[in-house]
């Protein structure tokens, strides 16, 4: 798919280099000449936005570390020191904490995009699974980072989450002691979480490289879900995709900046400005907003082990999506039934998120149970069945044809849905 490089080194040095380490040629063929489908919409710009945010988290994080002290007695004050004394420390910290939120906004849009357009289907299964692993690593990194300021939510969040492992039969308690490095969450826990919070983003970088590599082997999906068939269906990455990505990244940054400058604590929790107190559990523990749907699933189930299993399952099941969706047609644009179920699924996820922030009592628990059942049913019942019963719309012959037909009455003369051949 990536075609062969048309890169011509311009000067003597680059010619010399190209024969020894053809990195310029690799970059050229991956990000300049690389053919991208000509019909990509703005939902395709979030991959670039994610890469940008990863870089930003690493840069702000490295400078925060220069002023942060990973010790239970000093961490909270060192974060206040960053906020009050360090030049632009407030900005770095707000960029980093809101950057994490934006990271999750972007990854959720990116994932729902993939679900809507069937980007996980053959031959993009490995690409999708790498994405699920990246998402898991992001969740781990965000969780570890949230413990670092060592406020009340940091401490109790860490306690509740590490206790998931105590649900493991027999060895659970020993595993949790090992994770903590003590008999409860304490200084050894904070120090190792800091170490891992520094490490994981670089593991993420490595996986992003694999993710992009896999992408460039199989090529990008596009809103029609059919593969490019001729040169007419694609445009070179630069300038077309580059400028589109950059433009929308700037729009995204406006929203990001709005949070950083006008409501920097809106997405956080006030209790985290109270220093960690092992003697008092806050009355209402909630995780960061991006974990809320999973938290709702955990609390919906009245059994400890099963609650943890359901929480894990709700994420792991994403990796099996390529095989659970039995439809041969990729894009929801040609799947009228799936399209409706897709939006119901989005609403269910949002609903679970809303419930995750509510106290676990009465009607909230009942609602969370219903939505949890639906969440799993979407993957295990609805998606496999739809592939059999759904009557899909005719697919266009090619990407360029679909663009030329835009604006014409829908359901015109097209061939019956076919599996695209590669």
């Amino acid at each position: 798919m990536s075609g062969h490089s048309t890169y011509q080194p311009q000067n003597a040095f680059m010619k010399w280099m190209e024969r020894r380490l053809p990195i310029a040629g690799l970059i050229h063929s991956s990000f300049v000449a690389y053919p991208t489908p000509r019909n990509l919409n703005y939902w395709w710009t979030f991959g670039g936005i994610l890469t940008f945010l990863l870089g930003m988290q690493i840069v702000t994080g490295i400078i925060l570390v220069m002023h942060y002290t990973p010790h239970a007695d000093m961490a909270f004050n060192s974060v206040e020191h960053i906020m009050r004394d360090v030049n632009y420390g407030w900005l770095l910290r707000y960029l980093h904490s809101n950057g994490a939120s934006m990271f999750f906004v972007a990854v959720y849009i990116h994932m729902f995009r993939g679900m809507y357009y069937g980007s996980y289907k053959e031959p993009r299964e490995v690409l999708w699974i790498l994405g699920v692993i990246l998402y898991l690593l992001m969740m781990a990194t965000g969780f570890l980072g949230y413990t670092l300021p060592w406020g009340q939510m940091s401490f109790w969040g860490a306690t509740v989450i590490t206790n998931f492992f105590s649900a493991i039969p027999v060895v659970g308690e020993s595993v949790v002691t090992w994770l903590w490095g003590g008999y409860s969450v304490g200084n050894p826990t904070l120090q190792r979480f800091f170490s891992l919070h520094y490490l994981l983003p670089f593991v993420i970088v490595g996986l992003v490289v694999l993710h992009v590599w896999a992408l460039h082997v199989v090529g990008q999906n596009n809103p029609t879900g059919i593969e490019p068939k001729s040169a007419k269906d694609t445009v070179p990455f630069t300038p077309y995709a580059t400028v589109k990505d950059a433009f929308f990244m700037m729009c995204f940054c406006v929203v990001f900046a709005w949070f950083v400058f006008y409501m920097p604590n809106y997405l956080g929790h006030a209790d985290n400005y109270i220093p960690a107190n092992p003697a008092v559990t806050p009355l209402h523990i909630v995780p960061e907003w991006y974990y809320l749907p999973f938290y709702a699933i955990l609390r919906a189930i009245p059994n400890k082990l099963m609650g943890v299993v359901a929480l894990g399952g709700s994420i792991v099941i994403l990796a099996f999506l390529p095989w659970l969706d039995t439809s041969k047609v990729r894009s929801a644009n040609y799947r009228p039934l799936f399209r409706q179920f897709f939006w119901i699924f989005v609403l269910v996820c949002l609903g679970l998120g809303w419930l995750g922030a509510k106290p676990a009592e009465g009607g909230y628990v009942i609602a969370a149970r219903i939505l949890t059942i639906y969440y799993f049913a979407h993957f295990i019942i609805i998606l496999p069945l739809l592939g059999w019963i759904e009557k899909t719309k005719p697919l266009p012959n090619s990407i360029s044809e679909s663009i030329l037909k835009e604006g014409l009455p829908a359901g015109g003369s097209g061939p019956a849905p076919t599996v695209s051949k590669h």
Partner: protein
Amino acid sequence: MACCVDGLDDTNEGRKPVTTTSAEPTRRDFLYIATASVGAVGVAAALVPLIAAMNPDASTIAAGAPIEVDLGPIAEGQVIKVFWRGKPIFVSHRTKKEIEEARSVNLASLPDPQPDDKRVKEGKPQWQVLIGICTHLGCIPIAHSGQYNGYFCPCHGSVYDTSGRIRSGPAPTNLPLPPYEFVSDSKIRIG
């Protein structure tokens, strides 16, 4: 045979390794297995310190030494919280009514059946010592609250009775008892 034990055929100009298909084990087979075994032992040996270093260190264990608690100042009906190994320990001076409530329960109706007298020291039903950590996911329950006027965990709504036994909610088991003993009538040692 003598010329080719190393698997390379000397007449093979390109020096391509010749795959030996003979059933006879060669010297290379031996080297493969020997190297892999030594390597596997080495990896396993390296894992031991790496994993062990993440377990509680000597200072953490030392700080987890037993503590003594004077029961004198604890009024009837009062629950105090002390810390042992970083864990909150509830010391409850139960009233007659609380003891009665704990003892009159139909055990078969409990999720984790345990009689109250197994959860206190003999002859000291008024003193109850519990690890104050919810067995669900580790929050600290609030004393004198919940439906049974025992403990209530605000995190996900587990309800414990005056004996610290789980009655409803997601927690799977009763509040555990720390190891402790009476050193005198008004003093206990926890740990």
